[in-house]
């Protein structure tokens, strides 16, 4: 790759600070060093731990507690690459003029900053206590694992991806699970009713009691557990409640510095905020994406990787925007679910494969072109579909349905 591309005017930075020690920090640090950046890199994180992956926290790590492959950086690597880690130190402020970063007892100079502060779980008003859980950090996962024991009665509030994965893991650990979801199918907001229903069936087939179209009115704690009351008049006794109703991006630091915030920190496809030399990536960033045709805030591992890579490159004057289709996976009950692209409305959903066998790839078509796909155990199809989504050219539904058509050849044909 050329090193002569120019992205930001002015001189190259000599000191880069990443606020938030998670996925984005690890990827940005690796990218910067790989690109030959030899200035200072400091990663400042509020959590006391080395950067770790969050996807396993609701899946394998929650199930087993196995830290194998969990951590993203090691102390050795950081020492070897001269990357300074400051863990357990919340950032209190960012000076919009000097770029310096304020900690409780220190001020760190920076001429480029990446804000990757992530999000904090939404809570239910009035619902708290020792038997109420949310899941965001490794410590949260450890605490939750302790109560996911055979026969434990677990109520999961919210059938989004986190709630669904927690339910699946709880079942794998032998717990009894009730999911309470406000909408009429799980995952409706992302997948729509039809595919949401497929996910609902998956839960039921695995012994989960799904309570749909009801909200939680309250949780009362007794000596032997809690009672969850719902808008439908149900009273569900449980040993623990897991609230999985989404996250709020941690934008206070950016807003205080005068950076434009709308849902998340508003950035372009290279992670640039409204403030020069200040970037944002990960769950906190509402990024412009050409395939979306606007800004979108995603909470995906892959988006975090790609946007923080783009931001690290942009800091060094290299233009490598995040323009590929969005992509994420969710492992539930030994089924590998994947979604690619972005669609909030569509003309039709075309299914390749079998919904009842949970072996399919569903194409969300709009204007004749594939805008998104949702697949179960069809990762290969998703890879091909990403190419179709990226190109946005019309494709015949019959061709998509036809299992004899090689999707990759189809995607490549469209190029020619």
């Amino acid at each position, binding site marked *: 790759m050329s090193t002569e591309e120019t992205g930001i005017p002015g001189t190259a930075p000599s000191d880069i600070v990443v606020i938030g020690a998670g996925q984005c920090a690890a*990827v940005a640090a*690796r990218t910067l*060093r*790989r690109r030959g950046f030899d200035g200072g890199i400091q990663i400042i994180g509020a959590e006391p731990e080395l950067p770790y992956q969050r996807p396993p926290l609701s899946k394998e790590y929650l199930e087993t507690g196995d830290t194998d*492959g969990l951590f993203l950086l090691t102390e050795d*690597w950081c020492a*070897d690459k001269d990357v300074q880690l400051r863990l357990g130190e919340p950032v209190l402020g960012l000076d919009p003029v000097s770029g310096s970063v304020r900690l409780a007892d220190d001020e760190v100079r920076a001429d480029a900053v990446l804000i990757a502060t992530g999000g904090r779980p939404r809570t239910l008003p009035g619902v708290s206590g020792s038997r109420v859980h949310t899941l965001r950090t490794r410590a949260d996962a450890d605490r939750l694992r302790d109560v996911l024991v055979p026969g434990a009665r677990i109520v999961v509030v919210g059938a989004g991806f986190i709630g669904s994965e927690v339910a699946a893991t709880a079942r794998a650990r032998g717990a009894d699970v009730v999911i309470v979801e406000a909408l009429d199918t799980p995952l409706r907001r992302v997948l729509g009713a039809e595919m949401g229903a497929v996910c609902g069936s998956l839960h039921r087939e695995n012994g989960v009691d799904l309570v749909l179209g009801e909200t939680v009115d309250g949780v009362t704690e007794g000596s032997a557990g809690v009672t969850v009351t719902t808008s439908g008049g149900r009273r569900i006794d449980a040993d623990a409640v897991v609230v999985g109703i989404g996250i709020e991006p941690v934008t206070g630091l950016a807003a205080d510095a005068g950076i434009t915030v709308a849902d998340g920190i508003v950035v372009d496809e290279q992670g640039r905020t409204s403030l020069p030399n200040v970037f944002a990536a990960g769950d906190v960033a509402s990024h412009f994406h050409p395939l979306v045709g606007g800004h979108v805030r995603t909470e995906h591992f*892959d988006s975090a990787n790609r946007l923080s890579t783009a931001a690290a490159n942009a800091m060094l004057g290299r233009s490598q925007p995040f323009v590929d289709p969005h*992509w994420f*996976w969710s*492992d539930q009950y030994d089924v*590998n679910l994947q979604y690619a692209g972005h669609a909030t409305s569509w003309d039709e959903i075309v299914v390749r494969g079998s919904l009842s066998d949970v072996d399919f790839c569903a194409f969300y078509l709009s204007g004749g072109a594939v805008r998104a796909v949702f697949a179960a155990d*069809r*990762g*290969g199809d*998703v*890879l*091909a579909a990403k190419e179709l989504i990226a190109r946005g050219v019309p494709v015949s539904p019959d061709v998509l349905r036809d299992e004899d058509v090689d999707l*990759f050849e189809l995607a490549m044909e469209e190029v020619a």
Partner: protein
Amino acid sequence: MDEWVDLADMTELARRKKMRVEAAGEAIALFHLAGRVYALQDSCVHKQRSLIKGTVLHGRVICPGHQWRFDPETGEAEDQDVCQPTYAVRVEDGRIYVNPTRPATPVTPLRAESR
């Protein structure tokens, strides 16, 4: 001891681009890429998904499960510290022989990010 096993027909692999075969009780994924044949353990080192159900894109074998990307020659995974096992391949008289006891290249603990 060398244990070369006759596993596939070159013409067929060239047409199908990828094939799942078995040798010594091990599922092996064969890929045909730019005129060369590569053999990797089919079961992904990450979450044991079958690589043959993935694809080859931009010279990398991509696992269908979580899109880990492997160098077909070394088995090295992009941005990961682990390697997918690879096997030595020999093509003779239109037949593909794989040695399931021998890696394609000496496997040493690679640190992908240290480059």
